[in-house]
């Protein structure tokens, strides 16, 4: 009886799954068009899944194994089920293989079940608590149902009461696995996730690549086209698809500095709210941690309603420091920062509601090319005594030193001077742009003002075109990132180096000699825009090593470094929380027992020095190096600088 019903059951479930999938796809297609190579994406998908995604998941070994067993077991089982029970292929070995895969899946499901007994707070509850049981039922039922086919039990097995029990198991298991996949159950992640990997908006991220620059916004306002994302339907379709891939694992939440500081942001909830938005409805079914300080159940929206009018509060979007910790951590490779900035673009460019000092800062950037409204003709005052070669005079240099807006800030000027001293000691042939330099546009762009970003960037590129240089070096990781990764979209491609890498080169080439540093313990804080955005983890450490420093690493360092709170315009929008992100980071630093924290960013310096004393001292690597320089009277070789 069961055998007769099974093919029909399977067919029925598959049809409903298909219908669900079609509906889901139509939801995604409400989004704006995006340039995606569909075929190439689909072809690349298995590799992306098995290699790239696994790479991320594998950071949590136990979970990785669990997932391999469960998912692998399920995919194999499902294929075999279709053969054995769907098409009735009568082959004992196939059936035995199916038995094996269900056992594997069962084992995986047991691990899932165990994890769910006492789940960490970052995991969502609700339907996700049901999932391991459904997995167990699915695996167990099909194990038993297949026993006759495998010749282990007689054919007549499974009639009467047992048949009903098994039937119920099959319906429950297939319901969760197939219906849930198409109709927004937890298993949706498998379906959406697979397609998301295929049609990802940043295919460069697969195969070990890196893609972190924000995408250019088309500023054409003709025909009432909204700038930025007002409604879920304003996202590109593959962004919507990406949101649907979220497994609510909460790894992003666990890493998010704003969430930890009690600011009203939780990247996981944000992605889930986007899912609510794209499908329409409320967040009443959301079973994870809320935005700190905000009640769950009040948010509602649909694909064509403005997101910030009921679905997500504006503060939530402004609390993000764009540190990319969530993106780095997400096993589904979802792009939270892109989504947040897209929505900020709408708020700034269309609504004009950048909070805090945002409006003032943007006005300054427009009127003076720097965020504090300083006289643009006073950019070189800091170097009045430094006798720096200016490009307008020399026209050509090996290294263009991008000074950044640190030129206007007394504390940052100490870093700039230290770096100039280093370059002079190493006899680097360098020049600065002087008053021709403008803010790189990082801040305007993260605040959603892509118009001002593009205007600044275009004018900087114009200036850069006039001069000849081999590479750009800067002490500011934000400028570094923007020049290196975001100017190419506007036609400016350069070799850009962070000063730590450049110093390291000089040391390796023997053009700088450093004394060993004595004194207390040192730790190093990875700036987000240097580390996660650009993968530069080694050079700063190498330079510190060259001074004989044994780093006392923080628990959260390298790609898991915790943000200082200074990125994304967060200090300007200044959304209140329960703690300051910088205070938490300082606690991380204190935990190492360090007396000095080395940094490679003037923004990090400002944020960490904003922590009330007593606290470890904050020094830029340039300052530390400048203090350890061996005065080489006559350089061994007066080699030309590369």
């Amino acid at each position, binding site marked *: 009886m069961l055998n007769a019903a099974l093919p029909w059951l399977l067919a029925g479930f598959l049809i409903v799954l298909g219908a669900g999938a079609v509906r889901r796809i139509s939801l995604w297609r409400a989004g704006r068009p995006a340039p995606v190579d569909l075929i190439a994406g689909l072809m690349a998908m298995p590799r992306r899944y098995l290699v790239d995604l696994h790479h991320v998941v594998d950071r949590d070994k136990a979970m990785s194994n669990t997932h391999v067993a469960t998912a692998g077991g399920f995919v194999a089982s499902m294929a075999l089920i279709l053969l054995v029970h769907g098409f009735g292929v009568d082959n004992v070995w196939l059936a035995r293989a199916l038995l094996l895969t269900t056992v594997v899946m069962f084992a995986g499901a047991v691990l899932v079940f165990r994890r769910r007994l006492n789940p960490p707070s970052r995991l969502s509850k609700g339907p996700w608590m049901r999932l391991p049981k459904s997995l167990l039922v699915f695996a167990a039922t099909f194990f038993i149902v297949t026993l006759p086919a495998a010749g282990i039990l007689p054919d007549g097995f499974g009639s009467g009461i047992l048949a009903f029990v098994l039937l119920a198991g099959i319906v429950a298991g297939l319901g969760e696995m197939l219906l849930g996949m198409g109709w927004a159950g937890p298993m949706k992640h498998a379906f959406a996730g697979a397609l998301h990997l295929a049609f990802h908006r940043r295919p460069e991220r697969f195969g070990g690549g890196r893609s972190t620059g924000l995408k250019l916004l088309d500023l054409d306002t003709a025909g009432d086209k909204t700038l930025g994302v007002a409604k879920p339907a304003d996202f590109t379709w593959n962004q919507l698809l990406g949101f649907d891939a979220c497994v609510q694992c909460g790894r992003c939440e666990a890493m998010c500095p704003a969430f930890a500081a009690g600011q009203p942001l939780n990247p996981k909830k944000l992605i889930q709210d986007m899912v609510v938005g794209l499908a329409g409805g409320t967040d009443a079914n959301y079973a994870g941690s809320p935005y700190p300080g905000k009640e769950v159940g009040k948010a509602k929206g649909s694909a064509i309603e403005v997101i910030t009018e009921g679905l997500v509060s504006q503060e939530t979007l402004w609390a993000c420091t764009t540190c990319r910790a969530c993106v780095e951590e997400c096993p589904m490779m979802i792009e939270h920062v892109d989504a947040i900035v897209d929505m900020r673009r709408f708020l700034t*460019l269309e609504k004009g509601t950048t909070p805090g000092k945002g*409006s003032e800062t*943007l006005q300054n950037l427009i*009127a003076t*090319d720097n965020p504090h409204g300083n006289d643009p*003709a006073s950019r070189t005052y800091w170097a009045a005594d430094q006798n720096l070669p200016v490009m307008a005079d020399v026209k050509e240099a090996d290294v263009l030193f991008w000074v950044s807006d640190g030129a206007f800030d007394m504390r940052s000027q100490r870093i700039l001077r230290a770096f100039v001293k280093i370059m002079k000691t190493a006899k680097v042939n360098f020049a600065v742009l002087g008053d021709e330099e403008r803010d790189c546009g990082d801040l305007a762009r993260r605040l959603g003002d892509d*118009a001002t970003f593009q205007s600044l960037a275009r004018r900087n590129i114009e200036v850069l075109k006039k001069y000849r240089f081999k590479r750009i070096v800067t002490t500011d990781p934000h400028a570094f990132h923007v020049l290196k990764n975001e100017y190419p979209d506007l036609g400016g491609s350069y070799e850009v180096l962070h000063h730590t890498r450049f110093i390291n080169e000089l040391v390796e080439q023997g053009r700088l000699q450093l004394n060993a540093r004595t004194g207390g313990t040192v730790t190093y804080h990875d700036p987000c825009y240097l580390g996660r955005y650009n993968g530069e983890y080694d050079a700063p450490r190498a330079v510190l090593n060259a001074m004989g420093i044994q780093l006392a690493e923080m628990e959260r360092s390298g790609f898991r470094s915790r943000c200082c709170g200074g990125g994304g315009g967060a200090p300007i929008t200044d959304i209140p929380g329960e703690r300051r992100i910088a205070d938490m980071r300082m606690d991380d630093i204190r935990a190492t027992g360090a007396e000095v924290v080395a940094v490679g960013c003037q923004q990090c310096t400002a944020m960490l020095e904003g922590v009330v004393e007593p606290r470890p001292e904050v020094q830029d690597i340039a300052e530390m190096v400048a203090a350890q320089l061996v005065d080489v009277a006559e350089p061994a070789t007066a080699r030309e600088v590369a």
Partner: protein
Amino acid sequence: MSLDKSLKVRVLVSVGQHPKSGRERRADQDSRALELALGMPGFSVGLLHAGSESPALREYLGMGVKAIDVLKQPSSADVVPALVQALRNDSPDLVLCGTRAETGEASGMTPYRVANALGWPLVPAVVSISRGSDGTYEVLQALPRGQRRLLKVRTPFVATVDPAAAEARQSAFGPAQRGQLQAVAVASVADPAANDLEFSPARKRPKRIAAARKATTAAERFKAATVKSASKGGQVLVKETAAEKASAILNLLVAEGVIAVDSPS
């Protein structure tokens, strides 16, 4: 409050300049005037500019206004006749302006001359306007240091908006691009006195050294002496008793006139 849709407020806006870079922008006070207008329930808001169609005017549009009427005038023109003509045609109930322009002579005469030509009262340094019970408008005027005075005026009138009025909302790029600069051709009158004006970069004004002034009273002389000593690096009291330290503070407060010694009558 009954909303009378027929009420019209016109805001006169100019092209400002950033004080540090000199780059064109919306003028700060004019945009505060627009902010005030946008916050007045029941008024339809219109913008008027006499001059050229500078792109900086779009920053006003970015505050959420659909269009600006630009009365085309050469830079050598006296813009008041054109403004007055346009306002006569339009007959608004209320005209708002900034107190002082950011470019040119910036004498602050324009609103006074406009009011005079229209025969309307001029209310200066306004921070808020609300409708009173008896058909008059209640106008809060900014006095120095956060003090306020209440005035009552009937429409129509011209008001200049004080720098202490609420800060202008952010100007958003999208609406700024979509809004219209509607050019209106009008006759222009040349400014006869403009030739006499000789512009030069602002010279630093010598700071009067307090002590150099011939002091007439002991108190003045004393003040001169304290001002001088205070201006160089600051005095630090360490060893004195708490009472002595407190009285040093008090003396400075009294000398600066921020604490009233006479009992308030």
